[in-house]
């Protein structure tokens, strides 16, 4: 980890990003200048996704996806797909012919990446090994603990978190130069070792960004927000804030370790290992600050709005995959309920706080009464004994009340720092999953655009063939009447641009051109369809169930944790008050 101030480093990151981004933007604009097909939908991703392809991520991809099983197709080609999409969505580009080729080249370049990676890394694990099984075969449990306030080189304070990992995963062991049994045949499981290292928030962020980049088709758990505002006020070191963050960071790590692909990622392995490699890695690679761009900070407060937008079906084309629709619907309901629950619990917790305050006041008031009794102590020999007993009684009671107030305060703190954070996290994770669904949805739209264009080109070809020119074109329109207005618009524009060129050059030449474009498009569509279907499949069969399992577990854990807290809250009170009651009863017996 570079020791320069985190805040500044992010600033640097951002500057860097901005530069690179403006470059890519320019490229995009260049591409779009000739483009008429670039839909609004894909435009957003142009900026971001195209960068994935041509940024220094080229280096990173083979390095970081080395653990990804080659069998798991959607993962590997995924990074390239957005680029491919956006590029192919702008067919009139000058280099339109070259582009698909480049994309084609990309795929074989990545497919053998595991071998490449293996060669590059010291890891002798044969490429054939199925890492996805590692998740079931080996344990990998990490937890974040013991936040410590630390100073960086510019003597700015920051929080340092201890990450303790228990694992027997050979990948991790090897990374840490620990002995691994030769050629584990499944039965021979290495001993569990404990690793620990200290990481600061920036490292978590780095891990998150790397994972987002390497696995765009997976749900990457969201990090607790950066809270720049709190950073300025210095609240970042308040106990409550640290506890809340710690809780969220633990959830973040837990999600990764529970994920069968993410848990095997080498970035993560590097993250949990106490090696200098991590620092080298983070220093040498400046990742684009994705979170700042997408307004991660907003997630907290404006969660609902953002989410609702995602949930509104696209104007362009309705999602028609029933399973995805189902999932979306479920997520939406769950999300709405969580938000409401969060609000209600916050209200309830406020009452906990109020009552805790009441009881501490109550205790003080009882103490005052005991002072009144104490002041009358010197009243006369006859009453002195009774009065001091009375003072004692009041004190016993006041202590019991004070204990109640304190316990209630603790319960309030627990709700605030753990339970409510869990609820919020659940909501945030839903947003992450929804983002993924949204990506899938957008890709489908892109595919639709491609298909429209393809159809149009075919219609054009038929028109140039001469025989069924106007009628078939019209029929073509008719047959595709289902497609929305936007698609028609694109089509019209294309058609005019195409017809403009028809007038000047020879028909054969044009027909050949159109024919080649159609072929190209067909090819694109084939690839895209495969990719999108795989992505959809991945969401339906892997990511959603995985999230669902995780979410259920989190909700359950949150409830169990709350139960434990409540039980100990009440049990403590029962014990304390039984004690107080006993003392008072004793005195009452004396009186009788």
């Amino acid at each position, binding site marked *: 980890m570079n020791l320069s101030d985190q805040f500044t480093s992010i600033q640097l990151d951002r500057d860097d990003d901005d530069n690179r981004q403006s470059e890519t933007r320019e490229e995009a604009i260049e591409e779009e200048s000739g483009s008429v097909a670039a839909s609004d939908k894909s435009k957003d991703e142009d900026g971001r996704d195209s960068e994935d392809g041509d940024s220094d991520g080229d280096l990173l991809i083979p390095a970081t996806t080395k653990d990804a099983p080659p069998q798991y197709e959607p993962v590997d080609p995924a990074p390239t797909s957005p680029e491919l999409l956006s590029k192919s969505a702008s067919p009139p580009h000058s280099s339109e012919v070259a582009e698909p080729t480049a994309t084609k080249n990309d795929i074989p370049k990545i497919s053998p990446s595991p071998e490449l990676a293996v060669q590059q890394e010291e890891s002798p694990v044969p490429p054939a090994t199925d890492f996805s099984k590692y998740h079931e075969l080996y344990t990998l449990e990490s937890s974040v603990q013991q936040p410590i306030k630390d100073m960086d080189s510019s003597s700015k304070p920051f929080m340092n978190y201890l990450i303790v990992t228990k694992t027997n995963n050979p990948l991790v062991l090897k990374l840490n130069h620990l002995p691994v049994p030769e050629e584990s045949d499944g039965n021979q499981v290495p001993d569990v070792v404990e690793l620990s290292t200290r990481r600061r928030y920036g490292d978590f962020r780095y891990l998150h960004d790397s994972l987002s980049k390497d696995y765009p088709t997976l749900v990457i758990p969201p990090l607790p927000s950066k809270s720049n505002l709190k950073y300025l006020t210095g609240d970042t070191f308040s106990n409550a804030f640290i506890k809340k963050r710690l809780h969220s960071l633990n959830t973040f790590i837990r999600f990764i370790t529970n994920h069968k692909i993410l848990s095997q990622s080498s970035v993560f392995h590097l993250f949990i290992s106490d090696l200098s490699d991590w620092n080298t890695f983070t220093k040498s690679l400046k990742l684009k600050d994705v979170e700042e761009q997408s307004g991660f900070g907003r997630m907290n407060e404006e969660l609902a709005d953002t989410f609702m937008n995602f949930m509104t079906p696209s104007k362009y084309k309705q999602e028609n995959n029933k399973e995805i629709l189902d999932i979306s619907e479920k997520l939406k*309901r769950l999300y709405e309920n969580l938000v*409401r629950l969060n609000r209600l619990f916050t209200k309830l917790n406020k009452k906990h706080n109020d009552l805790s305050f009441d009881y501490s006041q109550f205790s003080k008031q009882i103490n005052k009464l005991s002072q009144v009794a104490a002041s009358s102590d010197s009243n006369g020999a006859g009453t002195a004994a009774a009065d001091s007993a*009375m003072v004692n009684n009041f004190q016993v009671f006041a202590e019991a009340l004070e204990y109640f107030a304190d316990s209630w305060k603790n319960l309030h703190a627990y709700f605030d720092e753990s339970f409510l954070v869990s609820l919020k996290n659940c909501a945030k994770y839903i947003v992450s999953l929804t983002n993924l669904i949204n990506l899938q949805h957008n890709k489908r739209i892109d595919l639709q655009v491609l298909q429209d264009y393809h159809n149009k080109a075919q219609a054009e070809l038929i028109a140039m063939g001469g025989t069924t020119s106007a009628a078939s074109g019209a029929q073509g329109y008719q047959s595709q009447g289902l497609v929305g207005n936007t698609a028609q618009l694109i089509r019209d524009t294309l058609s005019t641009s195409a017809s403009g060129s028809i007038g000047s050059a020879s028909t054969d030449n044009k027909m050949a051109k159109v024919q080649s474009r159609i072929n190209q498009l067909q090819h694109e569509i084939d690839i895209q369809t495969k990719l999108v279907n795989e992505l959809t499949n991945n969401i339906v069969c892997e990511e959603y169930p995985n999230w669902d399992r995780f979410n*259920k577990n989190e909700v*359950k854990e949150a*409830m169990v944790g709350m*139960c434990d807290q*409540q039980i100990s809250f009440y049990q403590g009170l029962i014990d304390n*008050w039984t004690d107080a009651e006993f003392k*008072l009863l004793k005195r009452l017996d004396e009186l009788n």
Partner: protein
Amino acid sequence: MGDVFNDIEQDNNPSFYGDTSILANPYPHTRSQQQPASPVPPPQHSPRLQQQPPQVREQSPDATDLVNSTLGLSNKISALLDSSDLEIAVVASEHLVGTSVVVYSIQFGRKGDSDDQRIIVKRRYSEFKSFREQLLRLFPTVIVPPIPEKHTLLSYLVNSIDNSHEIHIIDSRKRYFTRFLRELIFASDPRLRQSALTVKFLDPNYEMAWDNALSEPPVSVLPKSMLLANPVDTTDQNGLYVLLPSINGFDISKSSDNMPSLRRINDDLAKLWEQIQLMEAKRHEFETRSKMTLPANSEDENFTPFHNIPPELVKFENEFHQSIKALDDLDKLNNRSVKNYKQMIHNLIELGGNLNNFSLQVYDNSPGVDNSLSAAIEKFGSALDSNFLNFEGFLQDRLITEWQEPVHQMNQYFYSALISIKFYKYKVIQYKLLYKLKFQKYQEMFGTVSVPEAPGKPADLDHLEGLPSASLSQAIQKIKHAKDTGQAGQLRQKKSWYGIFGGGSNYNKQFSKRLSAVEAEEGENGADVGSKFIQMERELTKVAQLIALTTRDMNNLTDELIKTYRQFIKQLERKWLELMIAYLRSGKQLFEANRDNFTELREWLEQAP
């Protein structure tokens, strides 16, 4: 139809009370006095009122039986009140038909008695109030348990809008009255429960005739102002008490106390004592000069002068004030906690409902789907629901009834204690007033009998008249004038002192009139100085008697109050202990219920897939 009228006839028939069964069963079936079947409900009370007290009714052939049974009932009540296994409670409330007046049914009897054997008497708020006020008048040195304050106009207006609020107030009053009666009988001075007034209050025969009870002894023998009664035994019929000066602005039923603190009054008393010494010295000088004896305090051996207020009593007052301050704050705090608890319960209700809804929304009824999340959330919701029920029960049945209201009542107890202190203060002032009167009489005497050689003769100042001194002749003129106008006038002129203590000129006139009226009976008003002197001497004797009486009373009253307060403080500890223990117990009960609730949820979550 005929049967119905028969029933009514019988119910309204006074001979019904002659029925011996009334003793065992005064109100069969504990049914309400109002007959729902009655075709004419409004005239229903008047016959009842007329038939009370039952002794008045003669037309019944069983008149003697009636009297006997009435006596028997009141004897039975007295016996019940003294027995330790009495159970008493305000069990119900109802509106008098056609009015907004609420009556509260007091039910009492021995432990183990069935409802039929228990006596029921119905009392309205104003009757409780006047009962308590009369007790205060009868026993000014005793701390009478408090009853709830009359609700304010605001709460009355709220009532008329919000019916549930009225029910709430009535319920709260039922509890207050139950506590009042129980503490009156079990935890107060025994004189309170042994009073004939208490028996009458609980006597169903006096149910619609509370005014009668107030116009009978012991209440009827009480003087108008309690300052004109023996403070330790208010029904003492000693005639001297009528002669005591009364002080304006004293009202025993009002808790406001604008008098200076006992400490300050004590300082005044010390000054008074100095004056007394001075006066005694003057008297002594006068007596030696005039060779006559003025009536002084009755110097019997039992007489102990009342010099000052014991510091213990002063401390008590201070303590009461401090306690009231602390309890007022506690009261406010309790009200706030109750409000917060209510809001929290409301939040819990809302949460429970939402969780339930949540679980329904998440529930997926397609086959083979794992609905554990939905089930867990539902379980969670129902846990919160029973949590809310526990809190609700704690709040309504425990916190409000066993803490908030008793603490408020405790505060009222201190106010009651302050009322007896106020009474004490007025008595002290009355005491001082008597001394001042005595001083005046002395001054008059000294003035009248300025020439010791000629007692009984008017001072002869004529030989001084021709002297060439303006001031001297002016003085002679004044003396002569004073002689002419008479003693009563002189008394009236020197009234500045009374004003301080609220005794206006009005009082002075009345008092001296009363005093001289007494004197007038004893001796004829002679115009000569000799008879005047005799009259003054008699007045002085009366004043001395009054001082002796009051001094004795003050000593008794002081002792009595200290005794009462010591007892009160002692009981206070017990009361606080009981309250605190009850609080801890009910808290524990709540905690246990909630803990079990969450334990159950936790176990369910554990075993859930």
